[in-house]
């Protein structure tokens, strides 16, 4: 079988070039640290890697929302705690007021004290959440959710604003549920009107001992109702916080697992690629050496 001289050289050169490009490719993988240099290397893996990358960003988004919710809920819990403490203090004051006969100056003192508590409560229910919204802003408020002068009114749409992807967590609470609809002697009403009524009775010089005592009793009932609402809300908030904490751990774990899968698809296995590189180098050297040997053998040398 004949072999044309030029085609023998061409084949040898083609082999050397082939090995060379293999070496260059391996070197590129090593220097970029990426197994997949482009989608053509492994289209299915490249598509999966892109999905994994996106999933990581989405988990990050979920984490941010969840953290925001935790902050909001934590803050709400604190405020509810303060409300609870304040309501207890007011309650103790009324218990005191119910003990025995009160002189007009005692009543006046108590009335002033209760007015102070009432004003503090009015401030607490309108606490801002520091990000531009309000802790008890319902489904969204741009200004104080409670109008507390005279008969109180709850301004925003009652309910809770929620955030979440795949989950729901409250970030703004329903103020109406806690502070309005408090039980009172004359049906449901709001805590501010109830306190105003008690303060007015205490300030009224014509009020009898009996009517004061009755008013105190009914106010105590209302305060118990309020404390009940607050406790209920705190339980709900606590439960949501617990879920948010659990969710944070889960998101963390998912992130780590997705990152691992992504690395497996994209990152170079240095041990394998270094060994491939070494093999390619050896093959390249063999190709070049044999080329040199063969090209030395010419009949013309012997003539």
């Amino acid at each position, binding site marked *: 079988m004949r072999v044309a001289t030029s085609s023998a050289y061409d084949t040898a050169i083609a082999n050397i070039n082939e090995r060379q490009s293999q070496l260059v490719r391996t070197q590129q993988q090593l220097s970029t640290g990426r197994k997949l240099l*482009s989608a*053509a290397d492994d289209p299915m893996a490249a598509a999966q890697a892109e999905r994994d990358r996106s999933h990581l960003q989405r988990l990050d988004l979920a984490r941010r929302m969840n953290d925001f919710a935790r902050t909001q809920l934590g803050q709400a819990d604190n405020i509810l705690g303060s409300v609870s403490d304040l309501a207890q203090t007011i309650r103790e004051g009324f218990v005191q007021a119910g003990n025995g006969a009160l002189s007009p100056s005692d009543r006046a003192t108590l009335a002033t004290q209760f007015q102070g508590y009432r004003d503090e409560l009015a401030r607490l229910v309108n606490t801002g959440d520091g*990000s531009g919204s309000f802790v008890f802003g319902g489904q*969204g408020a741009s200004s104080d959710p409670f109008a507390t002068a005279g008969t109180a009114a709850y301004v*925003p749409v009652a309910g809770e604003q929620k955030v*979440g992807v795949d989950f729901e967590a409250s970030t703004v609470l329903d103020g109406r549920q806690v502070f309005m609809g408090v039980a009172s002697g004359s049906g449901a009403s709001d805590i501010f009107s109830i306190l105003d009524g008690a303060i007015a009775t205490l300030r009224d010089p014509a009020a009898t001992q009996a009517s004061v005592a009755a008013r105190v009793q009914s106010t105590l009932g209302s305060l118990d109702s309020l404390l009940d609402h607050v406790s209920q809300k705190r339980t709900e908030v606590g439960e949501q916080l617990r879920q948010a904490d659990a969710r944070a751990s889960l998101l963390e774990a998912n992130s780590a697992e997705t990152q691992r899968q992504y690395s497996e698809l994209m990152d170079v296995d240095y041990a394998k690629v270094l060994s491939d590189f070494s093999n390619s180098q050896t093959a390249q050297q063999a190709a070049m050496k044999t080329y040199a040997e063969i090209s030395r053998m010419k009949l013309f040398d012997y003539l």
Partner: protein
Amino acid sequence: MSGGGLLNLGSTALQAAYAQLQTTGHNISNVNTPGYTRQTVNLQTAGTLQTGSGFIGRGVAIQTVTRSYDQFLATQVGVAQAGASADAARAEQLTALDTLLGDTSNGLGVAIDDFSASMGDLVNRPFDSNARTVVISRANALAERIRGVADSFAQASQAVEQRLQQNISTLNDQLVRLAGVNNQIASLSASGQPPNDLLDQRDQLLLGVNKILRINTTTNPDGTVNVFSAGGQSLVVGDSVAKFAAQPDALDPSKLSLVLKTVGNDVPVSAAMLGGGSMAGLLRFRDEDLAAASGRLGQLAASIGTALNTQQALGLDPSGAAGAPLFAFPGPQVSAASGNAGSAVLTASVTQGSGLAPSDYAVGYDGTNYTVTRLSDGQQSTVSAWPQTIDGLRLDLSSGMPQAGDRFLVRSASVVAANFSVAMASGARLATGLAVSTQTGAANRGDPAVAAFSVDSVSANLTQPVSISFDGAGHLSVSGTGTGNPTGIAYTPGMSLSYNGWTLQLKGTPAAGDTIQVQPNPSPGTDNRNARAMLALSDARITAGQTFVGAFADLLADVGSRAQGAKSSADLSQTLLNGAQAASSQVGGVNLDEEAARLLQYQQSYQAAAKLMTAAQQMFDTILHAMG
């Protein structure tokens, strides 16, 4: 007995050996000349002299010099070359495209996710103007990335067309030279001897043409060849040489298509008629691979734009106005082919709620019926009456009448991405809230509640107050304009009610007299429900059954697997070409060692022949001396 006869004998031998030495020298000199076929001197005896005592030979004569050429193998090389050139051209373009899309860390998928992240911050704080500004800025980055990818596709298309022009220019040149060489060969062959080097030259030209398009040849008795394209058109026949040109396609003037310029008219040359060669590979890349990628990009961009714009329209911005479109992109464009004889004007629009197919369309009229062809896969549908909706595109004949043979191009997916932009200058117009709110009754004693609420369409009665009342015994009734005021509806937790364009899902255990109210939203600027719906679009499988990023991943995989396939085809066809070339050069290639051996052989023949002449000379001298 004649010394002259012997001298003559010697001289023929000398000439023969000399010719062989020359030919061997020619072979050695041209060992690396591309397309050179080794030549051999054909010798035969120079006849005999009939004498009474036998036939005396008269030496050697040179019959001709032939080249070791195998027509069959050479044709095989041509065929293999056409295949290899086509595959290599396509693989080169696809590899470039794949590399371009390959840097996914800055890719379209990241831009989509970054936009979603900014929408997430808006869900957290719908009233925050900074969050709104970031959303607009990320939307702009997304639009820019979409346009960037579209631009890369456009550049790839232009690169293809530049190469096509170069190929055509080279091809036309080679065809003219082929005709020239043909003529030279014809006039030289008249002498009866094969003009070997010209034949080699012509074979090289033919191989060069095969690199550009696949050809078939026939050989004429006068030694010339006729060249035909794979599709049967005459390229070189005698003195008539065809000329190729690229000009704007009649149907789609933004693309070049090939024509063969013959006397009288231009014959369009389709990729199928090329049969192979780099032009076939380039056209396949532009019209199949690039068109598919471009269609997917357009489909994705249209999906993103439509989804966001639709959701915007379902909500209110902080000023209480209905949401304006966030993104702007062109709708389908119809153009008539140049050369249409009729006056028909077709229009196309996208039907509400449907996604775009990743394709453009061609409409043809045959005199009776219209045929709509989906260009991505060739799927055809026949239309006899207008309007028709195909793949979500509503096509209609708006005026005029066509004539048989008229064609129209409907550019649908291909125009979206290049002109995709943000229509909204300020984040203040982002419709984060809904027009209606739900609220449980203040005096409720049970715990009926709203599990989920959505606005599905902007109906006239959307903001009409509606009241849902429970009887506490398992039924509810609804009252409000637009609801029809139904009563006695059985209540099960988890059920949904839909009226006036909204849908409300109920949960909880109601007591008698409990209510849920639906009313106009007094504070849309602090409401995040439509922002949540917009964020949820990123997870919705609305782009050919995939999420936005999923559709982008599919685009990557599609281009990647086309590139991978093209590379292996190119490798395979290169291997076939190498094999064919090896087979051909096995017969016709020069082997230096063989020539060296022959050199020695012919040198000895020459020396022997020279010796013969010396002997003849000496014999003559002897005779002369003998005569005194």
